[in-house]
């Protein structure tokens, strides 16, 4: 493997990892707080990309795409709240909530995917890059400025998420709800509001991943399906209910995927990733970064 090839694989690994981390942290947050798995999470990536595209068309393409992304985040938070209200809320207290919400979130996925098709049509679209041009470092590696922004901004967003969850009172209340709903209620925490906030936050993170992705590749309504599967691997691999583990796993899986693609090609890479996950889970049931004994309450 030449140095050139190595650096380009490393870079594509970093870009992939960043997108997976954004996607998986939202998925993990919803799982930890609400105890459900959201199958509509991947399609939110497409929704985020299309909404960004729509906003940039409406306000005019002369404006920097960052403004459209900022507005999209607001839309995604609201959409997340609506999805929680429609797909999840009616089933709280149902003892089969995990299974029921598999179906309702799959319904949401179908509805949103077809909705995108109906609203924006089948024609492929692409978002402009966040920053034009290329960056070259000592002639060793060259990457687009857009990729550089993804690599730098994604970890910043995730650090922000980490600080929010661990150091702000609202973030702590979200973690509390995930660990013991009854105790959270008795402390005066509004559990429904925490759920809405969590869903909105997860939708926004995914929307950002979508907007980043839309500047890299062509957009289509199913653009989130494959990343959702990867995010699922990342979340389980990182240890369920552990945001830092999820983020670490996202980077590990991203690099692993980039190197696998280089060495064995696109065809077998997803299968090998799954094999790798199963192999790890056989020896570490709690995931790679999960704590060995999670207390259930």
């Amino acid at each position, binding site marked *: 493997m030449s140095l050139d090839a190595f650096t380009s694989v490393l870079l594509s690994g970093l870009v992939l990892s960043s997108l997976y981390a954004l996607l998986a942290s939202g998925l993990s947050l919803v799982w930890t707080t609400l105890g459900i798995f959201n199958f509509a999470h991947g399609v939110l990536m497409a929704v985020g990309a299309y909404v960004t595209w729509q906003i940039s068309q409406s306000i005019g393409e002369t404006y920097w795409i960052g403004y459209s992304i900022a507005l999209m985040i607001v839309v995604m938070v609201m959409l997340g709240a609506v999805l929680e209200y429609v797909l999840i809320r009616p089933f709280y207290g149902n003892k089969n909530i995990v299974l029921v919400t598999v179906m309702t979130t799959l319904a949401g996925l179908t509805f949103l995917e077809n909705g995108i098709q109906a609203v924006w049509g089948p024609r492929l679209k692409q978002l402009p890059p966040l920053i034009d041009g290329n960056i070259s470092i000592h002639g060793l590696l060259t990457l687009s400025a857009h990729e550089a922004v993804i690599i730098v901004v994604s970890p910043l967003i995730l650090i922000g998420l980490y600080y929010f969850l661990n150091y702000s009172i609202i973030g702590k209340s979200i973690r509390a709800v995930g660990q013991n709903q009854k105790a959270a209620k008795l402390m005066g925490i509004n559990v429904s509001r925490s759920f809405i906030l969590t869903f909105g936050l997860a939708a926004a993170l995914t929307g950002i991943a979508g907007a980043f992705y839309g500047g890299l590749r062509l957009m289509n309504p199913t653009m989130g399906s494959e990343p959702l599967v990867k995010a699922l691997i990342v979340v389980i691999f990182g240890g369920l209910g552990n945001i830092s583990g999820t983020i670490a796993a996202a980077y590990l899986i991203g690099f692993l995927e980039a190197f696998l693609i280089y060495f064995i090609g696109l065809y077998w890479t997803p299968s090998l990733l799954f094999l790798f996950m199963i192999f790890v889970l056989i020896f570490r049931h709690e995931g790679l970064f999960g*704590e060995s004994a999670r207390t259930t309450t």
Partner: protein
Amino acid sequence: MTEELLRVEGLEAGYGAYKVLHGVSFDLSNGQNIGFFGPNGHGKTTLFETISGLIRQTAGKIIFDGTDITNASSDAIVEMGLVHVAQGNTLFPDMTVMEVLQLGAFPKRSRQKLRSNLDRAFSIFPRLTARRSSKCKTLSGGERQMLNLATGLMACPRLLILDEPTLGLSPRLKEELVRPISDIENSGVSLILVEQDLEFLLLLVQRLLLLNHGRITKRIDRQSEQVSHQEIMEEYFGVAVTHES
């Protein structure tokens, strides 16, 4: 501020078709403390979970400080100063003692007092000071119970409901809880203490209510009546308790 702090009238509640409370009524004045006792499974926990908004009542009324809170949400009730420390609460396994205490001050009315309330919590429960960075799941039963009480105090309660604070504790640890609970009483917080351990209850409250089959079947005011432990036990078990040896 009205003289009366809490009034419960004809409260009925249960789980689905299964009714647990059959018309419970009692009241509590500001600054007063009462104790609830009674056998397991007769509705003590259901009663207080209904009062704190975790379970919806099917009939009856709950008035706190002149406001009807019968249909209020649990967070609104805590915000008003009615704080319920639940039985055997495991709190948040992956959070540190300090984080839990900070969350205890989640209600808006208590956020400004975070600092002074933290100092008060650590002075009442010095053992928590050393464990402030430990996660809840590593605490011993006694420490967890102390954290539960301390967390209740963080919310600036006007009425604190303590549901079986001695559950699962050794006699020595129970003894250790008497002083902090009487400290709480002396700080002007009204207290409803729910206990199976009558000895413990008699150390801390003057007025006792016996909850039996979802009804209050006996009210004892120890200030006006001279009631012995033995008499209460007879009432409790329905027969004279004698030690044959």
